[in-house]
């Protein structure tokens, strides 16, 4: 009981300084808007009011839902493609040598640079953002997975070879579990990038998503309160996604890699 109390106390203790910093920044923001008497930049209170207004009429949830759905689709597709490809590249040298140079060239191209091609191929509907998110998420997972296979400690592979197990068992009980922590790390990086890209991708979509909300709020009468509201929401959701992915790292099947 005391231990739990201590833990809670510790957490509270750690949460203080960042909270204080955020409160101070919001205060500074409010003070700056009031003293400069700007008409276009909103106060924190106005941002909150704008957010509540959108929350009440439901459009806020529509935008959040649309963004999350696109990220989920692109991210899941990327994972489904990247994990097998990464494992294959990791296990077979010829495949690695063939695919890796191509991926190394494609990887540094920002997904934003693909926007014109995405519009050309998929139009401005839902497919384009999903395609761009897929592009941004697929490479980190491939690279991490292949690298994970390469860094499996030889003593484990030797032990498996010593017991003379089938290829199937070798793969399922040695290679995949050994690489799983790397896959999880790749997925966490990918999801972060995907969430970054969704906003940019949605700026080209006609009618929904947090990215669209930003562009639309500016175009429809300089509603900078809604621009900032969308930005804050993007930040908070991004944080939650990362926290969720970190939870995955606590699973028993991958915890062995991240220390005791």
């Amino acid at each position, binding site marked *: 009981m005391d231990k739990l109390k201590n833990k809670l106390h510790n957490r509270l203790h750690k949460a203080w300084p960042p909270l204080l910093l955020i409160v101070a920044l919001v205060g500074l923001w409010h003070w700056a808007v009031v003293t400069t008497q700007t008409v276009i930049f909103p106060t924190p209170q106005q941002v909150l009011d704008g957010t509540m207004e959108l929350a009440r009429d439901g459009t806020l949830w529509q935008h959040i839902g649309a963004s999350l759905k696109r990220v989920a689709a692109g991210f899941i597709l990327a994972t489904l493609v990247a994990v097998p490809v990464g494992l294959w590249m990791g296990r077979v040298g010829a495949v690695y040598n063939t695919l890796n140079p191509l991926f190394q060239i494609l990887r540094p191209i920002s997904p934003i640079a693909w926007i014109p091609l995405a519009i050309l191929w998929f139009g401005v509907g839902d497919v384009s953002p999903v395609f761009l998110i897929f592009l941004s998420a697929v490479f980190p997972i491939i690279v991490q997975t292949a690298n994970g296979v390469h860094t499996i400690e030889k*003593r*484990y592979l*030797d*032990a*498996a*070879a*010593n*017991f*003379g*197990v*089938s290829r199937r*068992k070798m793969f399922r*009980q*040695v290679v995949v*579990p*050994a690489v*799983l922590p790397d896959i999880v790390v790749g997925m966490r990086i990918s999801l972060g990038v995907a969430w970054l890209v969704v906003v940019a991708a949605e700026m080209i979509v006609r009618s929904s998503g947090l990215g669209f909300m930003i562009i639309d709020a500016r175009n429809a009468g300089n509603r900078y309160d809604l621009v900032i509201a969308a930005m804050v929401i993007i930040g908070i959701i991004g944080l939650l996604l990362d926290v969720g992915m970190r939870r995955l790292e606590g699973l*028993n*099947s*991958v*915890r*062995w*890699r991240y220390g*005791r």
Partner: protein
Amino acid sequence: MDAKIVIDDIRKGFTRKGETLQVIAGLSLNVKDGEFVAIVGPSGCGKSTLMKMISGFALPDSGAVRIDGVEVRGPGPQGIVISQHGSVFPWLTVRENLMFGLNRGTPAEKRALADHYAEMVGLKGFENAYPRELSGGMLKRVEIARALVVKPQILYMDEPFSALDALMNLRIRNELLRILQEERHTVILITHDVEEALYLADRIVVLSQRPTRIQRTFQVTQPHPRRLSNAQLQQMKDEILSELGLDLDLDASADVVEQRQA
């Protein structure tokens, strides 16, 4: 001809920058079925290279290793390696680790067998634990049990206990002897710990500096459990240390059964 393992004039060298470094230079050794042979040698003399060739993880440049008359061409479950750093899979539980090498039988049979060996090495109650939850000594027991459960004919032990603290080292030695009395395995132990060799082995083979040959062989006839304070064992220890280049003032004793190798 009751030799289980025949090492027939094996040689191994490594080529670097066009120069060949001869590591093992014509080494022959016969190991009887059920015999416990310890191999000691100065560090860097190629003990581990030798073990890799005996266990099939490396092939000799010339010569051959034969088990029951069949040439060894790769690793296999007839001989399991237990190494210094251990290779218990950290992503599997103790029970899953013990079941890993079992390729035949129903899941229930595998499980029963795994639990039997877990109990034998004193890990009853830890079947569902993950390796990260275990101490170094317990991990070593898991590794020994995982090897025993597949009923190998031979155990290859490459400095298996050197990462353990001194007390655990002694404890595990005794457990190994107890297990070996229950299930008679042929054992090849590589170690730099002369006392460990004297405590466990039926025969101790001392290797020379590179290029490695057998320098001398000692037969240890004392029954178990042995006391290392025993005069004969003390004498033998001094002689082995002297063979390893640690010269102590001593006079050879006739009580020690020894054979000079050509």
